[in-house]
């Protein structure tokens, strides 16, 4: 047992939590220095899941990178696809038809439901809830995955978006099925909230834990629900108005404390807004083609230049920066992964809290190691 000596506290204990730890959500390591149970120093160590994503992207054609984006954040394949497609569309000037844009909105919001539901489950698992909320979350997640499978052929690795549109058209039957899932979702959310939100132990474990000051969050480039939990009104759907989001009516919930409970609640409230968007989108979807007639997958050579495509992913701003030199491969391919950026303030959030809190705080950041390490 290596002890770290500290003049004031006496002997401290250094614990390496991870890379294989039940609650690090993958292979991630936190080097923590503990004074009793209190954290006096925390160093996140990542890269165990590094798969050379960006360099690989530079070595293959534009289209061939699309399935790899599924594997960044494996819960949100659809939004990753969209961000990448958006970047390439900006590079090439392709314009998805209206129907494709509607489909994208539907899928992105379904992904948001899926991701936030899973996160709530994982978070409760980290607080020690014996898997019950997680199982309920997964029960609902399956329904959305069924929709994804029926549409794209795969449950998680969808590989669905294409430059200038989508790959497969949605059928009326699929839309009806999606509508059914969406209509049933508020009931599940109510039940889930009855189990979790009002639970005194959950409140005690999450309120006031892992506070983030809005200034720190902005300075660190934190995005997504984590930023909005600090009370900063920044939602790329509103700010950028990409896709057809300006057409839909939805509100952006904001937290006031920036603690773990706020981060959880903002996600729950966002899910309720997503349900509203989904209803509008499914009802308003127009007929028409789903792919820009000029679009081509194989042999795409965008004109030389650079483009940045970003969307409001469930975890935050997911963006792709691409540089083309007119060849069939990107000359630079860079991913702005929200999990990674949000994770950088882990130490600031955890200092002064206990080991148990660190686990909950990490859970509330909502990281997927596939995206952090790339």
């Amino acid at each position: 047992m290596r002890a770290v000596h500290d003049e004031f506290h006496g002997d401290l204990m250094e614990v390496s939590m991870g890379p294989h730890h039940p609650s690090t959500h993958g292979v991630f390591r936190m080097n923590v220095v503990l004074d009793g149970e209190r954290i006096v120093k925390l160093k996140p160590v990542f890269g165990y899941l590094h798969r050379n994503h960006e360099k690989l992207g530079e070595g293959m054609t534009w289209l061939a990178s699309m399935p790899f984006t599924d594997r960044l954040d494996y819960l949100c394949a659809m939004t990753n696809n969209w961000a990448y497609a958006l970047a390439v569309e900006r590079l090439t000037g392709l314009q998805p038809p209206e129907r494709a844009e509607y489909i994208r909105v539907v899928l992105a919001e379904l992904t948001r439901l899926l991701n936030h539901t899973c996160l709530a489950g994982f978070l409760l698992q980290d607080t020690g809830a014996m898997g019950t909320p997680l199982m309920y979350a997964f029960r609902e997640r399956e329904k959305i995955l069924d929709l994804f499978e029926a549409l794209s052929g795969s449950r998680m690795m969808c590989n669905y978006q294409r430059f200038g549109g989508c790959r497969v058209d949605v059928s009326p039957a699929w839309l009806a099925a999606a509508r059914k899932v969406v209509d049933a979702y508020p009931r599940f959310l109510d039940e889930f909230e009855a189990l979790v939100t009002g639970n005194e132990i959950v409140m005690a474990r999450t309120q006031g834990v892992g506070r983030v000051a809005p200034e720190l969050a902005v300075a660190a480039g934190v995005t997504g629900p984590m930023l909005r939990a600090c009370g900063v009104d920044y939602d790329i759907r509103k700010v950028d108005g990409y896709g057809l989001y300006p057409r839909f009516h939805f509100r952006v919930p904001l937290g006031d404390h920036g603690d773990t409970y706020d981060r959880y609640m903002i996600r729950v409230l966002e899910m309720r807004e997503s349900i509203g968007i989904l209803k509008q989108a499914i009802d308003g979807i127009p007929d028409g083609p789903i792919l820009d007639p000029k679009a081509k997958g194989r042999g795409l050579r965008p004109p030389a230049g650079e483009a940045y495509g970003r969307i409001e992913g469930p975890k935050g701003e997911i963006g792709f920066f691409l540089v083309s030199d007119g060849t069939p491969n990107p000359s630079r391919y860079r991913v702005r992964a929200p999990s990674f950026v949000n994770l950088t303030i882990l130490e600031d959030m955890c200092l002064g809290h206990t080991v148990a809190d660190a686990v909950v705080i990490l859970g509330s950041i909502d990281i997927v190691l596939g995206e952090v390490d790339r």
Partner: protein
Amino acid sequence: MSASTASGVLETFPLEARAFLLERLPTPWGWLAASLLSIGAIVVVFASIFAISTLLERKILARIQNRPGPNRVGPGGLLQPLADAIKTITKEDIVPRSADGLLHFLAPVVLVAGALLSFAVIPFGRHLVPVELEAGVLFFFAAAASSEVAVFMAGWASRNKYAMLAAMRALAQLISYELPLVLAVVPVVMLAGSLSTVEIVAAQAGWWGGILPQWHVFSPWGLGAFLVFMIAALAESNRSPFDLPEAESELIAGHLTEYSGFKYALFFMAEYLGMTALCCLAVTLFLGGWHAPSAFLEFVPSYLWFGAKLGVLIVVLMWIRGTVPRLRIDQLMRLSWKFLVPVALGTIVNAAFWHSSAEWGGAWPAVRWAAGVALLLGPPAWLARRLSAGLGPRVYRYAT
């Protein structure tokens, strides 16, 4: 009267069986054989209760989580405990090289022994008390206290940081919760006027107004003491929401991190035995022991009533486990010292009031009940408000 004779036979059947066996043994060894028979019966019965409750817990948790649960081994998964046993026994027993081998080996043994010892003073039925001790309750707590030492031994001897943290947590937790656990028993002892478990059960005979059994739990002080006892018992047996020593998401498996194979199984056995023992004591002290809940149901053998009450308590504990998340260590300590201990002291006051007002007549019983209920609800509500200052539901705003 055939029904009552039949029930009488059933009632005394365990005694008859023991006498039958003892007659066939040489007299000089009779006293030893009698003890061994009791020990054997306890080990067999509670080991099978352990096996059944592991399966039951997995099934109940699964159903709560909308899963079917284990259903592959035997019909409906009934042989799952057997499969688990075979699996754990055949697994390699790993002892870390830097561990303290002796303590590492002794910890599970001490834990199981302590848990089994505490069964000795529980009156399981009208005639079924393994050992009739004058200070039965005291013996129970003395025996059960060994679990603290054992968990600390396991954590310390493993020489693992997670196990070490778990050991520190376990010591703090188990010692803190011993206090409300014992304090909750004090009013029972006060009112029954005896430390003997048999006499405490006997004190709960009779009916309120001919319907409601005179169990301690059906009085204001008894309900309060029962709830405090059960919360403390949950913490003493390291079960959710107080499973901090083995907090899976934080400390891997806490003090069990470096255990494998049969020793690991022993830990689990001890955990379940400890929980069962505490539930047995709760049934004895508060739920009327082996008494039937109603006069016309008395034909059912008393030990079956005991078993039924025990089963209900165990199922409720599993239900709680499937619902709530875990507390943090400082909150856990605060809950004990700032909430449970004062509440337990309050129930002692309440019990004293109840005892001294027993002779009130006329319209006074209504006042007596009202005062008792006020004493039951008031202090906890006030303490809970103070304890949870700053926490509560929140209202969220939306960006315009």
